[in-house]
């Protein structure tokens, strides 16, 4: 088992390395920051000096290694816009994004799992068809529209909930529902199909032959098996959410990493952009790694592969 964990750890490292490469490439695609940072009247000599200062005259691979070294120290440079380091800016916004994403994820799981399981044990029933229709709808509604419509209904028309900002629970509800909508639908559908596959197996029939109650058959025997692929799917959804948070945060003016990143892109504030991308990605890689470890406890067959 140790070997498996170590292997996955190194794979994760490679992925992170790859991410740094991509981030680096993107930044360099955006062109020479010299033009941005210096006033237009600056002469060619000043530009040369400036470029030397920023280390922009060195060959590309050297620049990359400098970049890598800095990243390892958490140094992504100064934000062009704000007077702080890009890293601290992003880190400051991170808790907000995590709060939102976790809230959305919890909401998703709490709704999707029961819906999926009950749909699976009563397939083709009225309940199943209703649940799956909603799930289909949920996967077809774009995040931004959902957010706007929810604001329209609950904030503008009914006035029950605020439409912007972060604060107490009432501020969290609309953004979390918006962000979680797609995942809820996806997880519900997937749980249903995973459960249906499992309920059809011989070992579930054995459990029934033993005369165990339906609760035990479904929740102990079936669910434990079905939950394994559902777990993979859920962690993928979590990654999707970290991505999708960008739009949700923008709509609700939620002070998270996504919103800051979008602002930074408008302002061509590249250090902030690259930090945001990097931090989000690393978090996702970390979560995947954790999920892999949890896997080995859920599915005994993995350890021995």
């Amino acid at each position: 088992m140790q070997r498996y964990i170590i292997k996955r750890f190194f794979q994760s490292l490679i992925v992170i390395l790859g991410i740094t490469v991509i981030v680096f490439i993107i930044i360099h695609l955006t062109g020479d920051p010299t033009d941005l940072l210096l006033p237009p009247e600056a002469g060619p000599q000043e530009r040369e000096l400036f470029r030397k200062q920023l280390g922009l005259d060195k060959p590309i691979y050297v620049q990359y290694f400098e970049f890598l070294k800095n990243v390892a120290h958490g140094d992504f440079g100064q934000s062009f816009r704000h007077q702080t380091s890009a890293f601290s800016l992003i880190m400051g916004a991170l808790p907000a994004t995590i709060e939102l994403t976790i809230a959305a994820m919890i909401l998703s799981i709490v709704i999707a799992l029961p819906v999926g399981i009950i749909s699976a044990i009563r397939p083709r029933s009225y309940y199943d068809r209703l649940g799956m229709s909603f799930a289909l709808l949920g996967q077809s509604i774009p995040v931004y529209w959902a957010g706007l419509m929810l604001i329209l209904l609950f904030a503008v028309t009914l006035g029950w909930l605020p439409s912007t900002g972060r604060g107490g629970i009432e501020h969290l509800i609309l953004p979390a529902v918006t962000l979680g909508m797609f995942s809820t639908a996806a997880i519900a559908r997937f749980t249903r199909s995973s459960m249906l596959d499992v309920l059809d197996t011989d070992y579930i029939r054995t459990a029934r032959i033993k005369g165990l109650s339906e609760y035990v058959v479904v929740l102990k025997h079936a669910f434990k098996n079905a939950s394994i692929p559902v777990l993979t799917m859920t962690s993928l959804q979590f990654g999707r959410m970290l991505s999708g948070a960008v739009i949700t945060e923008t709509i609700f003016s939620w002070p998270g990493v996504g919103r800051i990143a979008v602002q930074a892109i408008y302002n061509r504030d590249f250090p902030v952009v690259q930090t945001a991308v990097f931090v989000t990605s690393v978090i996702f890689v970390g979560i995947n790694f954790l999920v892999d470890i949890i896997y080995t406890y859920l599915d005994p067959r993995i350890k021995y592969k």
Partner: protein
Amino acid sequence: MSQNEKILEVKNLKTYFFTNVGVVKAVDGGNFHLRKGQALGIVGESGSGKSVTSLSILRLVPKPAGRIVEGEILYRGEDLVKKSQKEMREYRGNKLFMISQDPMTSLNPVFTIGNQIGEAIRRRKKLTGHDLKEKIVEMLKVVHIRASETRAHAYPHQFSGGMKQRSMISMALACQPEILIADEPTTALDVTIQAQILKLMVEIREQYHTSIILITHDLGVIARFCDYVLVMYAGKIVERADVKTLFKGNRHPYTKGLINSLPHLGKKQRRLESIKGQPPDLLNLSGGCPFEPRCDYSVERCSVEYPPVESAGKGHLLSCWRWREI
């Protein structure tokens, strides 16, 4: 309670599968009974309806396609067909148990063997903790699984096919059922393991006086193990008799074909005999005898009308228009 009373009576059982390409009459008029301590064999090809018969008894016919449309299954006088699933749960794992065909897939891969046997044990006695562990180990020893203390914590994928099947038997023992159905218990295993499994089942029968329904397509197993045999073809029981009569005094063409296709030791054979023709298409059965297309003795009537059940001797029944002449 007499030693030989009938504990199970199946009357006119009809279990059909409704598909969008037609109706499959998996079991079409099953009639038989089982006595206490008896070993009943059901023999037939794939698709003959033997497995569906056992699932019907347990009321585990796959829904929603499958359904028992007619018939009674009387267990000690109680009609199981009329019971709800909740009521059936009282019987399963308690009075009735089944060992399935494929031991590789019959055990839950994410729980230990001990855990799963423990569940069976707890159907009878609410043991916990140390007592439960002891009992689990004991049950593993009974089926000759060595190093049972450590094995109890193993997962199914760590067991060989034979060990898995023995674990299933262990579960069966823990349940102490009155009727044990074994659906092709040895088909997926090596011949040497087969012998071990059968030996175990003989032990169970002797020790606990369990009635066993053994489903198989292997006539050799039938010969060694069973008292009485049903021969099924395309959902119908075409002949039934005690095992001696079945092998020596069979009268149905299909049974003859089966017995004759066994290679004979000590007898020189040029060719192995087989039954000509194809297995029946269960979606397109005529109203007559389903064996007719492959039968050497068939006449016009056979393809039109299904022959009634007639007696050819004590406890020997069959359905054939021409059995007297053959």
